[in-house]
């Protein structure tokens, strides 16, 4: 074997070994790569100019000027603010009250709220922990089988990966899009553009099917073995839910999520812009939610902000407000004046929302946590791009390509192999690292073999999501273990996850055999 190939393989093995030591993943990936690059330069098998390009890579279009990834911090902010303002908690309480009278009702509530929370935060750990702290104790108190209860919570927590606007889908879109253009470059074929909107659209049907499958499993239990998931017995003196509570606690977050998703899927706004709307909407919702507790007089300002937003939408869609048109009618001028005023009110409302958050001491923790998460993601991107750079410098991408092309079973063998490797990597690496390190290596050859990039990305996302649910290493199970009361045994958590893993495999098989499930909606949106 040639020296550089040996070095590439050694580098990969060393990286895995070093990662297990438990130092920061981002710095371990970058550090191992740097050491091997220096060895390679010393032995004369690594092109040094490649390493010199590191600073320009960091400040270039793949990291610091990556316009696709601007959506990431904005969605993180949206999720963190909703979490901090306890909008998420309200959602779960109201859903359990609404559905609790049914057998399995709490289970349905957890799945539905998991899907909604996922759509708003996309952060697995946070969702699993929130739900285990709030829903698990009440499920156990009502006599739920601990296995069913914990399995439902863990599985619903992982929905955040697949249901848009999930953060990992944005990262995946960036990686797959690069892979697709690389593949078309080397094949000379037509260039395939994969946008974040495509992946969001592609993930929607599989994500909703998954929610349906989870609900069906709980319904099956409710019918066949009602003792495992009994209806809730309410205390006599519990006040019934008021319409206002439902409208605010359930309707408002739902409206926000639909607005953001609708804007992206309907082609009104690119994901980055929709994310900014989502983040500011979250500030308004959180402000309204907390203004009641804070006894703040700012609530009317926030309401005025929401009203002026609607006013802008109405005026914008009924008359021509474009500036720069030569002859403007008086009506247009009036429209511009009115909308300008409304926009100022809207910004004032955001300011009011931030003030309320600050008064409740939630603003700084939320901003700090969002900054931490964003820094974490992008440091991994920096470390992983150094790793990929060096791996490519040794010709590692050719090795991967050759191995995949030589797989028995042709392109399906290559796909299966990739999926198995990613599944195993999912036991100890996070979605983000896998997207940044593995996808750039395996996706170009797979796309060259003729697989659709969007479909491929959705399969990868579903595959990793399953991996996070699989004992003994699944991340979701770890978080659940950490937040669950001690009377729930680890074995119960593991056994509870198994039916949901089966459901995941059913869905993966469905999407694999019926690619239309992932590709039909994006093709509609493209038109």
């Amino acid at each position: 074997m040639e020296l550089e190939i040996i070095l590439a393989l050694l580098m990969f093995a060393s990286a895995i070994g070093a990662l297990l030591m438990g130092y920061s993943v981002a710095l371990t990936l970058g550090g191992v790569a740097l050491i091997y690059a220096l060895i390679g330069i010393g032995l004369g098998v690594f092109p040094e100019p490649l390493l010199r390009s590191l600073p320009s890579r960091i400040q270039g279009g793949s990291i610091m000027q990556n316009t696709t990834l601007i959506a990431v911090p904005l969605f993180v902010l949206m999720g963190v603010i909703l979490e901090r303002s306890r909008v998420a908690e309200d959602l779960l309480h109201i859903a359990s009250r609404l559905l609790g009278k049914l057998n399995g009702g709490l289970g349905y509530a957890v799945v539905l709220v998991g899907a909604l929370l996922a759509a708003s935060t996309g952060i697995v750990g946070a969702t699993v922990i929130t739900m285990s702290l709030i829903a698990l104790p009440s499920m156990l108190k009502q006599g739920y089988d601990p296995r069913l209860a914990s399995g439902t919570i863990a599985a619903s927590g992982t929905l955040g990966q697949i249901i848009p606007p999930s953060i990992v889908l944005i990262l995946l879109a960036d990686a797959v899009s690069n892979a697709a253009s690389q593949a078309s470059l080397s094949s000379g074929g037509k260039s395939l553009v994969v946008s974040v909107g495509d992946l969001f659209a592609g993930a929607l049907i599989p994500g909703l099917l998954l929610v349906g499958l989870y609900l069906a499993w709980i319904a099956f239990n409710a019918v066949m073995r009602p003792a495992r998931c009994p209806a809730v017995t309410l205390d006599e003196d519990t006040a019934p839910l008021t319409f206002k509570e439902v409208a605010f606690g359930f309707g408002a977050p739902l409206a926000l999520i639909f607005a953001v998703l609708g804007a992206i899927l309907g082609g009104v706004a690119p994901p980055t812009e929709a994310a900014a709307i989502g983040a500011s909407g979250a500030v308004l919702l959180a402000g309204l939610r907390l203004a009641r507790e804070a006894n703040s007089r700012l609530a009317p300002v926030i309401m005025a902000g929401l009203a002026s937003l609607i006013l802008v939408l109405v005026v914008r869609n009924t008359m021509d407000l474009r500036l720069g048109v030569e002859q403007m009618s008086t009506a247009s001028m009036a429209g511009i004046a009115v909308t300008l005023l409304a926009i100022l009110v809207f910004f004032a409302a955001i300011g009011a929302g931030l003030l309320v958050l600050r008064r409740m001491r939630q603003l700084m923790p939320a901003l700090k946590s969002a900054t931490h998460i964003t820094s974490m993601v992008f440091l991994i991107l920096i470390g992983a791009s150094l790793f990929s750079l060096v791996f490519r410098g040794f010709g590692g991408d050719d090795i991967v390509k050759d191995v995949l092309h030589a797989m028995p079973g042709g392109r399906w063998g290559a796909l299966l192999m990739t999926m198995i490797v990613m599944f195993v990597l999912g036991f100890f690496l996070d979605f983000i690292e896998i997207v940044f390190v593995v996808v750039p290596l395996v996706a170009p050859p797979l796309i060259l073999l003729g697989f659709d990039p969007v479909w491929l990305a959705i399969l990868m996302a579903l595959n990793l999501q399953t991996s996070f649910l699989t004992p003994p290493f699944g991340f979701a199970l770890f978080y659940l273990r950490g937040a669950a009361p001690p009377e729930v045994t680890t074995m119960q958590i593991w056994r509870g996850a198994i039916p949901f893993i089966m459901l995941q495999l059913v869905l993966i098989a469905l999407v694999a055999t019926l690619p239309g499930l992932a590709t039909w909606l994006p093709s509609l949106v493209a038109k």
Partner: protein
Amino acid sequence: MDPAFFLHLGTILKWVGIALLPVFLLPLVTLVLPNLVEGISKRVSAIIDAISGVALGGAIASALLLVMFQLTVVVLRYTYGISFTWLNELVIYAFAAMFMLGAAATLRDDGHVRVDILRPRFGADGRNWIELAGIYFFLFPICIRILTTGEQGLARAWSLFEGSSESDGLPFLYLFKTLVPAFAVLMLAQGLSEALKAALRLTGKLENEVPATSETESAHGA
């Protein structure tokens, strides 16, 4: 302002950095002579943590600005059909500043993801040794490499006061590019602080923390 002034300033800063290199031996000295340098090690670490905190403040302000700038872009484009290159560039600047300035404080607060499978089994001492090794073999070399290879490009950007390539863009591209060495310096300093803390813990001068804070948990799986 004369670019030559800033280039001189850059050279001076570089030599200050080189002169400060012996400080990076302090964690190792702490391991050997803990009683002698305990005070100064704690002091240095506290100062660096505070500096990272200031940078975090900048990152948080950037996060707020990011939302506001991006929202302004949306509103202007959607309502009036206008867009400005400089406004889009402000969005990018705020976006990049958020994580380039926030990374060091995230290191301080243990917010960067680790692989947790074997970590609990290494014991407190094992984890501290791994921390030291990671900092000296991975963190420091990466940051020094970024600083040394970026030097020429940065000097060129400052000597031209390089601006946007678009005519209606911002004239501050050289400041944007300075975020890269700023990131490297902040990370180097925070790495030093973390190494000092690990060395102090190994010699019993500092309490061992309980691993896996809630911060890393909520960060996971984002």
